[in-house]
């Protein structure tokens, strides 16, 4: 029935074609997940302990992977996992606790494990492993990050992992005051870094493209990687797809091409203009799947720079900028104009706030009159159609954005036009890279610049974007320290006053509150803090959110049916994970 | 007055590190050009005539020897002054077309040296154009006609006149005319020769006339001197008509024999002889002409002849072991118009 499909590769119904949005194919690169070009594909032949469902309120909502189950103690500092009883590598060898422990040692060499304060890893039995946080810490995303680790065969990486790796890790983790031990820790940390370099450069022998996942790499060329179903996969009977073809791509347009040609059974999130979206949806079988993305695009203000230190100015700008219009032009496909200015995405705001609290939020709908009134009350004057600042100087703006971020660039142009029309001559400017922008921002070089905001799904992460380093709050050891904007290299550019009012007028310290969030293990504990932070953000607008992103993904139903379109937590994951759950069935 | 003593010039072989054989173009030449005098160099291609001319005008350096311009050796002078004096010796090239910048009008061509001349002599602007007109008229050109023209719009003779006029802008004492007429159309050739002769006669400009056309040499300097050059050496010299009528060196005789005979108007000289072969550039310690000389004997091939004075004529010198005067040039016939 599918003879007419334009698929170029195999006519087999069970061939599932897709691309990996994170990953270009690099022939010659090793089969090594720790290599940034390594030819392994997460969710296909690279498997994690479990798969996150991207819940904004529950960081611990996971779909089992190699870990069949897990338990943790009350404050979340100890986690015990049980491996799938029949998990096997593609050579038939079982996946054991040893493999897990080695994988975590490798995670230490890559700096991943330190990020969630991992302390000890204990093997309980061949299929049970216990993890402990560093003594004294309780990082509330411990389980979340632990479960997202990739597991690799210990035997495979034995050549690059020294026997004493765990003692090096232990030494490196010393955090006391003994200067000799501190020095040793530093040396050990360096040793780990050196190891990390070795590990990521390591090329496991070609013969053993070992996978514990649903698929195994079969063949690779600069254009495509071909993965075969792994018969030894623990849930192999759920997997109905025989072969996955991973198309290479070097630019978005190539993915658009594939999609337009109906060649992709699953097309992951790709930035695209509306016209392309329409074009893609015209193709037979193509279907759009929208899942929320926990991130927003915003404008950050440097409050060290006059006049952006004035709340009224920021609010006035919020009234002038027509976010719907900006989103239509900038991110017509996967953008949703930001409604509530809370520091989190609007969906999260709905989850965290009660309906009455939501109603209280200012929505800053486009309103020139309000903006004018606000500015006038702040001492601004309009002369010859252009605004003069209270200090008597004309008000002009440059809004910085990043090269390659086309949605931002387009949005920047629209905002500039709007502001110029409003009487603030504004021009867009483009910075060479995002890293450069972040650096310049923290150096206080931009009054107004584009900013990735509301990065979640966890509230602490989202607020940390505003009230963390950007506002001068940093964790030194276990102490929260505040650096003033004048401290060079410390990155404080938002530079809010020490205390800011919520909508109800209550003065709060957002930096401290944000830090407190990281210590909370239960949602109920977090809720009041999150609500206060949202309210304060809405009142003060340190960052003006323009739109929330959505993940727009595509499936093609002409060759396969039963996609997990209604299971948002699952569809957020790579298609291999869907298949583990029994989804994706070839049509007859 | 220019006096040249024992001038030697060797060109380094070309080609950077892997040089070709050096070429000894001038091998110790003595001559002098008296004020308002005429000196002609004759000789076949490659004998070094041009090289000497270029050295004299300062366009080429020399290896050894001495050149005295009015008794002053220019190498002793500071650069600026040396240039100043060298400008008094001007070169007239063979190809008048190449000697004029094709992208400049005659006006521009004339103004270039005059601008600098005016600066030097602190003359006003008007002087420049006036001077240009003056010299152009001197060479027989109408400035109004030629000023706006480009070189390609002029005939060969006119071009050569412009070249001479340009040389005159710097008030030269000596003109070095290197084959100055050989590219000029026959009908115009005589006009240029005439002009050169007049410059000499009227303005006292001395002339070094380089050519392989002996008749032309005779025409500008009947009373002057001819130097016959063979492979970078002077083999014979003498007062023009003397040398033409009774050359003693076989090479001179061959050269003179080669002048075409106007049959019907002239009869060939009794001893006319033209060597057929190509000459070799082989270095020889003996008489260099011996390999081509029909009169050569063993001595010529082993012993280098020294310069000698031809008895009875202080000005007539030669380098031949067996100097013999021969009549080689054509004799005019008496033609009666019918």
């Amino acid at each position, binding site marked *: 029935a599918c003879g007419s499909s*334009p698929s*170029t*590769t195999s006519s087999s119904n069970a061939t599932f074609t897709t691309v990996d*949005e*994170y990953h270009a194919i*690099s*022939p*010659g*690169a090793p089969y090594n997940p720790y*290599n*940034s*070009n390594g030819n392994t594909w997460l969710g296909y032949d690279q498997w994690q302990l479990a798969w996150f469902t991207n819940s904004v309120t529950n960081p611990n909502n996971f779909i089992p992977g190699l870990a069949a189950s897990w338990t943790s103690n009350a404050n979340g500092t100890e986690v015990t996992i049980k491996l799938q009883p029949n998990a096997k590598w593609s050579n038939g060898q079982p996946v054991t606790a040893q493999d897990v422990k080695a994988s975590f040692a490798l995670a230490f*060499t*890559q*700096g*991943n494990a*330190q*990020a969630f304060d991992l302390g000890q890893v204990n093997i309980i039995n061949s299929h049970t492993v216990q993890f402990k946080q560093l003594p004294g810490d309780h990082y509330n995303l411990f389980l979340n990050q632990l479960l997202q680790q990739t597991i690799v065969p210990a035997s495979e990486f034995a050549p690059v992992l020294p026997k004493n790796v765990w003692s090096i890790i232990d030494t490196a983790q010393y955090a006391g005051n003994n200067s000799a031990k501190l020095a040793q820790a530093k040396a050990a940390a360096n040793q780990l*870094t*050196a190891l*990390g*370099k*070795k590990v*990521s*450069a*390591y*090329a496991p022998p070609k013969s053993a493209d070992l996978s514990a996942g649903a698929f195994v790499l079969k*063949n690779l*060329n*600069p*254009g*495509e990687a*071909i993965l075969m179903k792994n018969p030894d996969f623990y849930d192999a009977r759920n997997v109905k797809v025989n072969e996955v*073809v991973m*198309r*290479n*791509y*070097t630019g978005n347009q*190539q993915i658009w*091409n*594939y999609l*337009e040609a109906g060649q992709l059974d699953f097309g992951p*999130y790709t930035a695209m203009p509306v016209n392309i979206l329409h074009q893609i949806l015209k193709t037979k079988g193509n279907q759009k799947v929208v899942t929320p*993305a926990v*991130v927003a695009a915003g404008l950050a203000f440097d409050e060290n720079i006059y006049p952006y230190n004035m709340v009224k100015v920021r609010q006035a700008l919020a009234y002038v900028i027509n976010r719907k219009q900006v989103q239509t032009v900038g991110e017509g496909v996967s953008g949703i104009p930001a409604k509530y200015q809370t520091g989190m995405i609007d969906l999260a705001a709905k989850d965290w706030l009660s309906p009455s609290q939501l109603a209280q939020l200012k929505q800053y709908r486009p309103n020139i009159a309000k903006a004018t009134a606000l500015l006038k009350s702040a001492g601004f004057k309009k002369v010859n159609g252009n605004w003069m600042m209270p200090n008597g100087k004309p008000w002009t703006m440059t809004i910085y954005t990043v090269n*390659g*971020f086309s949605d931002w660039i387009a949005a920047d142009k629209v905002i500039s036009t709007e502001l110029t029309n409003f009487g603030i001559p504004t021009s867009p400017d483009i910075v*060479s*890279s*995002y*890293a*450069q922008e972040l*650096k310049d921002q923290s150096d206080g070089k931009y009054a107004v610049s584009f900013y*990735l905001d509301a*990065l979640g799904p966890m509230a602490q*992460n989202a607020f940390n*974007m505003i009230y963390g380093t950007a506002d001068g709050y940093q964790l030194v050891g276990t102490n929260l320290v505040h650096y003033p904007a004048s401290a060079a290299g410390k990155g404080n550019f938002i530079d809010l006053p020490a205390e800011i009012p919520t909508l109800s007028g209550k003065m709060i310290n957002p930096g401290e509150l944000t830090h407190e969030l990281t210590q909370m293990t239960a949602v109920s504990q977090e809720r009041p803090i999150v609500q206060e932070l949202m309210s304060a953000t809405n009142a003060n607008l340190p960052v003006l959110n323009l739109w929330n992103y959505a993940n727009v993904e595509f499936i093609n139903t002409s060759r396969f049916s039963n996609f997990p379109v209604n299971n948002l937590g699952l569809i957020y994951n790579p298609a291999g994970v869907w298949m583990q759950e029994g989804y994706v069935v070839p049509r007859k | 007055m220019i006096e040249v003593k024992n001038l030697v010039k060797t060109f380094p072989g070309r*080609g950077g*590190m*892997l040089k070709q054989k050096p070429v000894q173009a001038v091998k110790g030449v003595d001559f002098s050009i008296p004020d308002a005098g005429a000196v002609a160099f004759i000789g076949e291609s490659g004998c070094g005539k041009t090289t000497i001319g270029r050295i004299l005008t300062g366009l080429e350096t020399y290896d050894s020897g001495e050149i005295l311009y009015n008794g002053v050796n220019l190498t002793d002078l500071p650069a600026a002054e040396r240039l100043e004096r060298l400008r008094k010796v001007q070169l007239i090239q063979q190809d008048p077309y190449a000697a004029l910048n094709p992208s400049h009008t005659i006006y521009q061509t004339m103004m270039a040296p005059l601008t600098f001349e005016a600066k030097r002599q602190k003359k006003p602007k008007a002087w420049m154009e006036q001077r240009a007109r003056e010299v152009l008229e001197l060479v027989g050109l109408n400035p109004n006609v030629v000023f706006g023209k480009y070189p390609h719009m002029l005939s060969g003779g006119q071009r050569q006149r412009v070249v001479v006029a340009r040389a005159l802008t710097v008030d030269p004492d000596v003109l070095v005319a290197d084959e100055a007429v050989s590219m000029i159309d026959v009908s115009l050739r005589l006009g240029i020769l005439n002009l050169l002769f007049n410059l000499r006669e009227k303005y006292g400009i001395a002339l070094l006339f380089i050519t392989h056309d002996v008749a032309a040499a005779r025409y500008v300097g009947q009373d002057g001197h001819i130097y016959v050059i063979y492979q970078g050496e002077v083999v014979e010299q003498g007062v023009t008509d003397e040398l033409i009528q009774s050359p003693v060196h076989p090479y001179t005789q061959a050269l003179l024999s080669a002048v075409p005979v106007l049959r019907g108007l002239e009869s060939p000289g009794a001893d006319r002889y033209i060597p057929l072969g190509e000459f070799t550039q082989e270095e020889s310690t003996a008489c260099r002409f011996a390999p081509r000389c029909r009169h050569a004997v063993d001595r010529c091939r082993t012993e280098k002849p020294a310069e000698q004075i031809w008895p009875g004529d202080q000005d007539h010198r030669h380098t031949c072991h067996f100097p013999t005067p021969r009549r080689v040039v054509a004799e005019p016939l008496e033609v009666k118009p019918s």
Partner: protein
Amino acid sequence: MREAIRLVKRLVSGAVMVIIVATFTFFLVRMMPGNPVQAEYSTLISRGMTPTQAADEVRVMYGFMPHQSLWQQYLHYLNQLIHFNLGQSISYEGVSVMHIVLSAAPWTIVLVLSGVVASFLLGVSAGVVSAVKRSSGVGNFLTVSGSLLHGIPQFVMALLLAFLFTTLWPIFPFGAPYDGALTAGFNLPFIGSLAFHAILPVAAYALSSYGGWLLTMKSSVVSVLGDDFVLAAELRGLKSGIRFGYIARNAILPLFTIFALSLGFMFGGSVFIENIFDYNGLGNLLLNAINNRDYPLMSGAFLFITIAVILSNIVADFLYSVVDPRIRRS
């Protein structure tokens, strides 16, 4: 003997040039704003990773970042060079630059070599025709089409062809150098697929450089046609075939050096064509290296191209002295 000395001399001066270029590029690429860590960080962020995660990820890369002073790094680099070692790539962790460059080279060679050769053959033949028939309609058409094609930038041509033949009329495949289902090697289906996939990019390359060859060849033929020996050959009644041989050989001489040089520059790849048609050749490699601020890879690729150019120069010189007796010595 002389030739041998000349060759040695050329090689030595070529080697000096290589060192100079190596030095220049070494310092130049390190003057570029940003660094590999930043570049990688940017990439991760734009892939949607959180800044914290991204920072963790790239921290490993600091291990690859040289900590010595620029000067020490330079000496180290030179030392490696002398041992024919171009160092290790940063973005392709742990892979040697030499390996990367050598594995990218074949793609470029397949693509650009056929492009250069095709455009040369086409351009030269059309050039002869347009010179010989320069006052006829055919000649004018060829000349005008040549000038216009010559005027169209390569990337425009590539985009145009790609749009026309893969999107509008999907006749040719797009997006991979060969059919993924095949195994690379010396087997017929593979080579066939390789050739089929190469048609568009080669055509784009050939079309955009064809005009240049045509115009050069035309003017060369026209100037040879004006030479006396051509008229002499005619007046001696030489057969037209022989006369054509005379003209062709003389006319093609000046193009010879350019051709040899373009073979050398071939190793620079064709950034646009490789980019648009997705070949992992040297052009794309260099572009990626630049985007990732992969210093060793950049220097290495630059050096590789430079060496190719210098060698092709030397070869061109020597071949030229073989075909043109006037250049020959002794």
